[in-house]
């Protein structure tokens, strides 16, 4: 499945590049494809969270860092519908791209940690993390092409460095809790990305209500 994902993502990127180089695919189409990719990404992260939840020690929730501690929380994003609908398309895209870009390194950490995660569903979790990486990369490349069509504001990316280090913890509980924390942060950001892109898609497809 991962292999198919790679093929699919590379195909997606190839198509996007070719399209951008040769002739203009309408932005609607590009946004639709990007939205579908981000939807998949969010679905994966949700499932990953639920899977982690099945065997999470209750005390872990107690000592889990707060979501404000996510490395991407400093980015100012709309937090309700009205705000989101007021943001310009370029800004929305820029936000989505910044968030996505911020997760390239942490996903690597997650991927490495998933191999030795002390969890009964470790293999499934590891598989999902791998898919997250692939989809994230593909979506990032696609959004880059999209940003080229939407002006300079869309191409500005906010730098959100991850300072968590490569090691999630020494003992099992710490590892697990840190792992869960990263995954939950990623889930929030993937939802943001998905929502922003879908708002963009609906806005771009004014004549196609079925896109909303």
């Amino acid at each position, binding site marked *: 499945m991962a292999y198919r994902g790679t093929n699919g993502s590379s195909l997606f990127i190839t198509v996007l590049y070719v399209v951008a180089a040769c002739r203009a695919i309408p932005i609607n189409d590009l946004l639709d494809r990007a939205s579908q990719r981000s*939807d998949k990404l*969010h*679905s994966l992260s*949700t499932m990953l969270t639920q899977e982690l939840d099945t065997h999470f020690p209750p005390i872990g929730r107690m000592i889990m860092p*707060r*979501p*404000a501690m996510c490395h991407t929380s400093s980015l100012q*994003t709309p*937090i*309700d*519908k*009205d705000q*989101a*609908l007021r943001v310009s398309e370029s800004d929305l895209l820029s936000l989505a791209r910044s968030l996505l870009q911020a997760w390239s390194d942490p996903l690597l950490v997650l991927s490495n940690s998933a191999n030795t995660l002390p969890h009964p569903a470790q293999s499934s979790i590891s598989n999902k993390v791998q898919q997250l990486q692939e989809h994230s990369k593909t979506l990032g490349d696609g959004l880059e092409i999209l940003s080229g069509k939407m002006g300079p504001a869309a191409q500005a990316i906010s730098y959100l460095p991850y300072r968590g280090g490569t090691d999630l913890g020494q003992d099992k509980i710490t590892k697990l809790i840190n792992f869960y924390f990263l995954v939950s942060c990623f*889930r*929030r950001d993937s*939802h*943001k990305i*998905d*929502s922003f892109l*879908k*708002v*963009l*898609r*609906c*806005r771009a497809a004014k004549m196609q*209500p*079925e*896109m*909303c």
Partner: protein
Amino acid sequence: MKRGLGLAVVLLLSAAVESSSTSPPGTPVLLGCRSPEKETFTCWWKPGSDGGLPTTHRLFYERERLKGIHECPDYGSAGSNSCFFNKKHTSIWVDYYLRVVASNALGNTSSDILDVDVMEIVKPYPPENITLLVKEQEGTPYLHIRWEPPLNIDTKSGWVTVKYQLRVKQDNSHQWKNYSSDTQTFLNLHSIVLGAMYMVQVRCMLDHGSWSEWSNTTSVPVPKYFPNERPFWILVSTLSVVPFLAAICILVMKRKSVKQCLLPPVPGPKIKGVDVQLLKSGRSEEVISALIANQNLPPLVAWMDQVEEFLIVSDCNDWRSPDPTNPPKRKKSLIIPVGFHFDQDLLCKEPLPNHWEKKDEIVKNSETHSEGSLPSTDLNQEQQRDHCGEASDRGVSTWTAERHQCAANVSVQPFAISGYVDIQRHMQEAEGTQVDYSRVKEVTGNDAVILEKENVQSQREDEDIPEDYSRVEEVDGDNVVFLQTQDGSCKKKDEHHTDCTNLKMIHPHPSKVGVCAALMGSEYVDTTPAFPAS
């Protein structure tokens, strides 16, 4: 002292009574929150014991990115023990830290803090207006299920993405069958059982959040007999078959004329004068005769004329053994083409001068077979003639036998040897040596001689060229003889002479090649002209 003690006991008792009925409120429990459309959310709690006193519950929250502690903006919209956060107070992707404080006269009790992100508590209401229809497609019924998104959902801005799920079962079974519908608000269910009652429920989900509750069950009965369009099509096909069959019948009945029209008969071959029926009868002789009769042939007469000119019959003895001692005998040379038909009547007609008038008799000699009728000047001649006549009487086949008898007087030169025969007549005992012969004018080839054509002036007055003889004027090739026609100048020697008419061959019989060939070998010649050999 006793009064003081009693008062203390009373106060203690009353205090004890009071403290057992009232207490600070019990700890309320936050049950949970729910956002039905990702724009508002509601939280519910369960209050603890009230401690016997009127207890109030208040919800306080803190929020990420928001300073301060805030209280629930709306306690009543969502019912008791609930807090409704409207759009203004709802933010997503930020954590809410909620707690409920129950307070009464005796104290306050706070619940545990509930950590809530709206993103995680999105759970829509069930879809609305579920309609079931039994529709029909190509004679088979199917179930058409249609619904609407739940209330309050914003489907116009793209803020939420709704996904649906259905489950269907028949009323007599306990097993539900699940179906997924991505974002469309209808579903067609094929292969349904006629006469059954179907029950359907639908639910939905927002943004990979929680599923809604199942909707109320909607059921529809499927009719047992489905009124489909088959009778209509049966009628249509029947009506169209009838004229088709009628056309077939007409075609069969008139098949001959149809065949005539489509496959016109090929015209047979037409040969002028040939009767197809005659051909079919298979008698080749008649066919050939019919074919021949129809042909435009050159008039035999003319051809005969040409042929007649070149026939000379001479005596055979002269050829075989010329004996100078012998008196010149009548020579009969026959030069005739192969195509000539041997006519027995003319053969061996040795013209005798005194028999001119007896031409007919001579001709008929074969028929009458009378010797007496022939005047004889020369016994030999008569004998010869008789012999010849007898011989001629018998036909071709017998002539061969008689040939030898006639050989003395008749010389037949086989063509093979000389190619021609010279027919000459002269008197055997004529003192005159005048003979009827032609001069050779030219020799052509190995075996051809061209003779002069001359007015026959017979010096023998008593001899004349009999009318039934011809002079050979020219020999052409192996088997062609050109005969000389009489000029028409004849001398009447005596009154017995008949007119000298142009000698003509008077026996236009069709030649038979086989006969001619026989003639070739047997040295007989027929002066009857026939078709040219070549």
